[in-house]
């Protein structure tokens, strides 16, 4: 038999939050796992950048063995440095290995965001506010209605124009 104080807590935010706290724990554990994978791709990302930097710098050193002595020489060295670095980095950014790793990196970052969204949804629901999915449903409905109205308006305009001729 429920007493009055128990009935009160059953509708309060703390009860809703407590009921969903397990979901938050699960999300946090999964965030931890995803962070491990995210870091793996992040490390590879910086490894690729630093490796190309090293190779490009070696090329510059080979092309410019002497320390520049005047303003014109400094300008020339700067030009060589920029051209070689731009070429080598563009080659990297254009490569399959970079695209693949970068795609995975962004994907893991998105999964982390997804878990964060899920945690936020639990909190929102505990205070009787709509979740992201519920708001998205409203946006979708509004979009669909606006589209229908807009198409009807445009058809009407076209029809009026035809009749006016």
């Amino acid at each position, binding site marked *: 038999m429920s007493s009055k104080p128990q009935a009160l807590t059953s509708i309060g935010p703390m009860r809703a939050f407590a009921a969903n706290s397990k979901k938050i724990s699960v999300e946090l554990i999964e965030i931890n796992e995803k962070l491990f994978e995210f870091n793996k791709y992040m490390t590879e990302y910086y490894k690729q950048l630093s490796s190309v930097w090293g190779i490009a710098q070696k090329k510059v050193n080979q092309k410019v063995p002497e*320390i520049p*002595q*005047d*303003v014109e020489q*400094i300008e020339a060295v*700067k030009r060589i*440095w*920029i051209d070689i*670095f*731009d070429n080598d*980095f*563009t080659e990297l*950014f*254009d*490569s399959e290995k*970079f*695209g*693949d790793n*970068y*795609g995975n990196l*962004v*994907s893991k970052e*998105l*999964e982390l*965001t*997804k878990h964060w*969204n899920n945690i936020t949804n639990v909190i929102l629901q505990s205070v009787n506010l709509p979740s992201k999915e519920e708001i*998205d449903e409203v*946006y*979708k409905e*509004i*979009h*669909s209605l*606006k*589209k229908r109205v*807009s*198409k009807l308006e*445009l058809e009407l*305009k*076209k029809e009026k*124009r035809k009749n006016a001729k």
Partner: protein
Amino acid sequence: MQSESRIDPKIIEEVLKFSKNVIDAPKLISAPDEINLEVTPHKVVQEIDKTRLLHYTPLVETKYKTPLLISYALINRYHILDIHPQKSWVKNLLEQGFDVYMLDWGTPTSMDKYLDFDDYVNGYLDNSVEYIKNQTSVEKISLQGYCTGATIATAYTALHPENVKNYVATAPVIDGWKDTTVISNLAKHMDADKMVDIIGNMPPEFMYYCFSVLKPFEQGIEKYIKFFKNIDDKKYVDNFLRVEKWLGDTPPIPGELFKQWIKDIYQKNLLIQNKMHVGDELINLKKIDMPMFTQVAVGDHLVSPECSMPLHYAVGSKDKILKIYPTGHVGMIASSLSQKKVLPEMGTWLSERS
């Protein structure tokens, strides 16, 4: 014997001058909000959702009956086509006697995440064309699309050829598999479904990242060195700041539109194969049968010529021309070359057909 290393005094002088310029810069340059990017007078003649249709005030007597509507890209804002009085694409066309309209796509918010290609092509663009036809009492208009705006304009022209008298495609994004830019490599490895599902619209920050990997040392270092070296040159600084302000202002791209873009253009390459759908309709490029002018830039590192040129060969037009200019993506529309060569050629071509 001890070797003696000597430093040219000019080097020290240059370093000191450069440092002084960096220190003086905040006193010499305007803050971004002091720079007005809307150069040529215009009126907002139609607003639908966040989009605005701009009508530019004629600068000379309008010589040609057919009005021109410009469909600007989805990345950054339309201001680049009117960035500076001496480099303004719009002003040049007005001075040639054309009646010019521009479609500003506006700044989508989270609420707009479901806007798709259909909304842009058969909604906003079609509404703008209908408005212009109604106001100017013409049956057909001239349409120009730039970059991603040209992809939308291409889809529109294929679906509504009865409304387009002349079509100008400037650096259009058409054949995603042939694109040789870094952007296309990133796009091909992107999980667009996951991205849109989780974050909704494509955020500007992601686009800034994509821009930052294009010629990173030329654009990220050399450009700013040149800027500080020329800090006393008012004309150079004004131009530089205008372009920088424009570069730093890109709206988000609606999620559904972005998803279709990445998947249909870059990953499956459906548009050039006549397999892409907009709404329920299939786009057949052969239906583009009106006079068409394709403009590409040989040094375009955002949309490579290989990506744009297939449009010229895919359309059904008999009266068509392809021009390749020795410049880059922005240079084609906002430079002295665009004023001296690209625009006069386009103006002559349009005037003969307007």
